[in-house]
């Protein structure tokens, strides 16, 4: 079963708008990662935020983490048509001496020109 739940399941916006995706999880984590997946392709690592961090930026991406609410958000600013993809949050759990990466169901983002 999956650890994370993304919200919304699907998001449709116009180019130039901001896109916000949320992720909730259930248990304590070491860190949380966001990945992007284009149709028919593998996952690409976007950004990692550690459990002791609250906010992180990378280019047009901004990730927040609230460990008290067990939630994270990914904001993509000034979206482009090329940002169209599925976005997954993945929690990294300590498990038997290694870090286990558990994914949510993803948010499918469509950015229209």
């Amino acid at each position, binding site marked *: 079963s*999956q650890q*994370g739940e993304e919200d919304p399941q699907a998001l449709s916006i116009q180019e130039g708008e901001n896109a916000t995706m949320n992720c909730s999880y259930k248990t304590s984590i070491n*860190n949380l*990662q966001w*990945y992007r997946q284009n149709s*028919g*392709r*593998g*996952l*690409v*690592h976007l950004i*990692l935020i550690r459990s002791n961090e609250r906010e992180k930026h990378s280019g047009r991406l901004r990730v927040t983490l609230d460990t008290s609410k067990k939630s994270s958000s990914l904001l993509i600013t000034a979206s482009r048509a090329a940002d169209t993809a599925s976005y*997954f949050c993945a929690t990294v759990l300590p*498990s*038997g*001496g*290694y*870090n*286990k*990466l*558990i*994914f*949510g*169901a*993803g948010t499918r983002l469509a950015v229209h020109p």
Partner: protein
Amino acid sequence: GAGVSQSPRYKVAKRGQDVALRCDPISGHVSLFWYQQALGQGPEFLTYFQNEAQLDKSGLPSDRFFAERPEGSVSTLKIQRTQQEDSAVYLCASSAGEGGGYTFGSGTRLTVV
């Protein structure tokens, strides 16, 4: 190589056939993961290797699934007597170790007919 390589890219199997999926991780990466991704879903954890040791196989859905990494580099996921519900994309990921992101291959899309 520069990335994680998976082969074949696509595989069509008749129900009851055995299949073998190959993963070439990034050279020197200690950790290797296999995931199964059904259409429209997030990746589900199957198994984890640390070098040649299979430390976690809790995600393998049945005893028809078997994975190995005999020399701590290339890994093979074998599915015996394939069933229609095995149809999915099988993703391999590798990591150098603790604390970082994971590099995913493009996956093998398995269709059981």
